[in-house]
């Protein structure tokens, strides 16, 4: 990316990235619109300062990360219910109804797993597992040592596995709470 990148190009190419990053960083569905707007207002304001030293997605993710953290601080009290409107929105409408329902369920499971992580772990986990960034790139993006990135990844993976197990158990056991047997 040279210095010639315009806001329009950036928005068009990376809106989805910003949106899903915010989602994965735990911004509730009801707030996504506002927070995405905040992010792109910052992007617009600071585009002139953006230097091509880093990848544009690195820069965007940092802004998204800060916005998500701010929102979390302001609204942590409200974070209690699984927000199903997010799920209504987030699955590809091209898939058929059954697939859609299954997908929604899987996505809910993924969300539960993310909820078991703190913000730093979410960032590392999703950048590594879903965005395909390397450890080095993640360390650079989050401005942390490589070792820290790896240790967060390890913790996040453990949390993910435990949460998926819990979620699965709960889904299999009718009306059972966590730990219910199939």
């Amino acid at each position, binding site marked *: 990316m040279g210095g010639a990148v315009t806001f*329009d190009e950036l928005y068009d190419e990376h809106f*989805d990235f910003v949106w899903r990053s915010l989602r994965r960083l735990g911004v509730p569905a009801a707030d996504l619109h506002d927070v995405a707007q905040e992010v792109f207002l910052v992007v617009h304001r600071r585009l002139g300062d953006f230097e091509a030293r880093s990848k544009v997605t690195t820069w965007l993710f940092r802004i998204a990360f800060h916005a998500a953290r701010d929102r979390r601080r302001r609204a942590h009290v409200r974070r209690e219910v699984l927000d199903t409107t997010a799920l209504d929105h987030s699955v590809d409408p091209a898939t058929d109804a059954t697939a859609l329902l299954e997908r929604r369920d899987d996505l809910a499971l*993924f969300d539960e797993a993310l909820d078991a992580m703190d913000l730093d772990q979410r960032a590392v986990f999703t950048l590594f597992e879903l965005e395909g960034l390397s450890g080095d790139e993640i360390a650079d993006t989050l401005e942390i040592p490589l070792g820290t990135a790896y240790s967060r990844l390890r913790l996040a993976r453990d949390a993910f596995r435990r949460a998926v197990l819990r979620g699965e158990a709960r889904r299999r056991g009718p009306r059972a709470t966590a730990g219910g047997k199939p």
Partner: protein
Amino acid sequence: VSEPKRFLDDPGELSPAERRALEAALGERPPSGAKRAVLGAVLGNLPPSVDAPTGLEALGAATTKATGSALAFGALAKSAALGVALGVATTVTWVSLRPSDPRPIAPAPPAQSAPGRAASPPASARSAAPERTPAPDERTETQALRGKASSSHEPDASSAPPVHPVPAHEPPAPSTGAFPDDATLAPTTLESRRLAEARALLRSGNAVAALAALAAIRSEFPRGALVQEREALVIEALLATGKRDEARERAREFLGRYPTSPHAAAARRAAE
């Protein structure tokens, strides 16, 4: 420390449920309309000096000049960067605020066609950016955005249906935003500008004028790409003018029509 393998690249590592959860997350994308709605909101919240170089007086002038090249930020730069002569011509037009040629000489240059890709996850997470064939609804809105982004020309309202452009030489967009381009909805630029102006009126406490501006936008862009944003502003302006009943009615109507809109939460509050 050696780099671990990504879960999805390491089939033995994952339980079926873990894999499904990750794959579902990989396939996730913003709700239909979100991209457009956020852009509308961003445009509406930019400082006037940036977003509305022609100032609010342009509201009237631009309304009478359907062909005025009201540009969103960056569109000029984009045109220039693309080396499209049209862009340069439009720059001059825009700066001097003269009406431009109502006929677009060429449609906006496209990026690339998004490869039709099924939801099946690839082995490598890196290549798994959710590129896919956009749903028809979404196609429209991304075309709108693309039109906004890359076409600085406003076709007049009566111009012929758009010609589908031949793919140009622009390198493929790297990730998610690559959709077929089309000059169809270049008026979105103008529409979003008008909305920004109406919003500015509303924010400056002039809700009555905002309502008038919004009504004008409605007749000018009856099928505009930013209908939801317009209606959300109307509801807000009605509330600001004390017309609670009307606001409530509009909000209910809005919710009936766009229950999953990013503005639905605000409409719901207004409908209460």
